[in-house]
């Protein structure tokens, strides 16, 4: 006979006569693989949580990880973090849900994370039912959705084309609570998911147990970054305590305080709209949320509303190769050259193009002038020094290297009116000052797709380890 699932057992423990006892959700990490602070995490385990969730990925670090299939975190720290959470979850026999495996949550990231989980289980003698959920979208499904007008851009990006869908090296969708609930219904102790909404790892279980989805989703949104929603903010584990009317947020580091202001302010973080959050199954509306201090350390939140979607939707992320990238690193402390730098660089680029044939792109960022911000006006006082980052992207690494090395030499010796420092225009901080940094990618898809059903897009696979 099969043993009861975690959902069955939690329902048995927490739900009586349609009333629910407080549900304790432990947020282990907002960026699993970058180092979990062990003291706060263990303090969370000591509170007897009903589940552990952790987010492992994001679109924030840029398109390289989704494009290349590589993980942003180091293997060493990712293993260390996974081991800490796996041992904690198994010691307390509570479910562990990890979303957006391996940074970008595509097949290679998921496989790499699963391999680490199996290794850790073998090394430490842990046995559990492991579910994995893939997030790679079948290209034909997305192309068919484009043809029926069911795909729309999110923000400033062109409409998605079938050619971009075919050209993406990886294409994923953000799964919601539904996929995690299927994995738990299949008896999973540990769920490792590909690309997922940050909220799903915390809200899937309480939503399945009948807690109101509005507060459950709001709690998930607040605790997913751990103690960032505190004053002062930090990365220590956080605990959400959910009941039928709302939730309480607290940090597991006693020096970080969840105040009404710090928790309310978290709704602004990395959100275009502080009042709503779109999820595959609906929309969280926090317009009427109330934030109350329980004491100096804990904040009580009530009033979030869940608006179910008439039809589900999935955020699509895709990344495509642009070319091979090489960089030139150079500094300059010559006032005459700095005053003319915005003229000198295009002049040198022209010389490079007259020598190195072929198709390549060249970019310059002049730190001290406009390396970081595309300022509407140049600086009033020119800087004493500038740093010049030259960038070449070409179809082959050879061509990128050729253009960068010629750029280096001609920038060093470029002649211009009023030049005093005739032995060289720039200082190279290292040798060689031209470096090849691998393949460059771009986001080719950041869109939302209306779908009939979520289940077929996010298949669950179960194994016993």
């Amino acid at each position, binding site marked *: 006979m099969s043993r009861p699932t975690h959902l069955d057992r939690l329902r048995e423990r927490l739900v009586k006569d349609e009333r629910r006892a407080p549900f304790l959700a432990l947020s282990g990490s907002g960026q699993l693989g970058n180092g979990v602070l062990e003291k706060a995490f263990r303090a969370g385990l000591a509170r007897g949580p009903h589940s552990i969730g952790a987010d492992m990925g994001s679109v924030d670090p840029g398109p390289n990880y989704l494009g290349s299939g590589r993980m942003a975190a180091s293997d060493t720290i990712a293993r260390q973090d996974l081991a800490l959470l796996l041992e904690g979850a198994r010691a307390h026999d509570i479910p562990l849900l990890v979303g957006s495996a391996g940074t970008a949550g595509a097949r290679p990231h998921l496989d790499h994370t699963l391999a680490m989980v199996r290794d850790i289980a073998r090394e430490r003698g842990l046995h559990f039912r492991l579910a994995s959920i893939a997030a790679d979208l079948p290209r034909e499904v997305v192309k068919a959705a484009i043809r029926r007008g069911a795909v729309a851009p*999110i*923000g*400033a990006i062109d409409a998605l084309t079938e050619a971009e869908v075919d050209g993406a090296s990886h294409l994923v969708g953000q799964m919601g609570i539904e996929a995690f609930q299927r994995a738990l219904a299949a008896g999973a102790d540990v769920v490792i998911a590909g690309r997922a909404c940050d909220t799903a790892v915390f809200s899937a279980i309480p939503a399945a147990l009948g807690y109101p989805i509005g507060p459950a989703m709001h709690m998930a949104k607040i605790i997913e970054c751990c103690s960032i929603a505190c004053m002062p903010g930090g990365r220590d584990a956080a605990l959400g305590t959910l009941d039928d009317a709302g939730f309480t947020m607290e940090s597991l580091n006693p020096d970080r305080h969840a105040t009404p202001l710090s928790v309310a302010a978290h709704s*602004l973080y990395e959100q275009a*709209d502080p*009042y709503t959050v779109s999820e595959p199954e609906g929309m969280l509306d926090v317009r009427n949320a109330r934030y109350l201090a329980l004491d100096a350390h804990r904040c009580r939140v009530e009033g979030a509303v869940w608006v179910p979607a008439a039809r589900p939707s999935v955020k699509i992320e895709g990344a495509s190769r642009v070319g091979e990238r090489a960089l030139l690193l150079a500094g300059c402390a010559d006032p005459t050259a700095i005053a003319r730098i915005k003229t000198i660089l295009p002049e040198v680029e022209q010389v490079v193009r007259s020598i190195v044939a072929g198709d390549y792109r060249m970019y310059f960022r002049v730190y001290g002038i406009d390396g970081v911000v595309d300022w509407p006006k140049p600086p009033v006082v020119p800087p004493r020094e500038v740093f010049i980052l030259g960038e070449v992207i070409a179809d082959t690494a050879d061509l990128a290297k050729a253009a960068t090395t010629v750029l280096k030499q001609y920038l060093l010796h470029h002649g211009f009116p009023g030049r005093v420092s005739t032995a060289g225009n720039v200082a190279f901080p290292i040798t060689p000052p031209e470096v090849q940094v691998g393949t460059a990618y771009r986001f080719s898809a950041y869109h939302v797709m209306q779908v009939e059903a979520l289940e077929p897009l996010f298949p669950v696979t179960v194994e016993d380890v």
Partner: protein
Amino acid sequence: MKLVDCARVIRSKNAGPTTLTLDLMFEDDAGFRQALASPSLTPAALAPLYGVPEADVDVVPYAPAFAIKIVLPRKVIAGAPGDRDVYGAQQHGPLLGVEL
């Protein structure tokens, strides 16, 4: 008064790779209301600071945190060739000189 002298937080970050969001947080409701009333924090005044059309700038008041959110399209999608700030975490500079 300069914005930088009355705001507690002036920060920028991506809201996804296509959108930049700037958060201004004030000490109290009075500071928040004063800033919200300023003509310097309207889409018309902010658009030229970031070189985007006025119609592309959203200004969203968020009273629960005494905050004003400014939302802009990114001119370059995060991490695409020519980008200068993949996370968008250093795009607050043009706001530091704003007089309320």
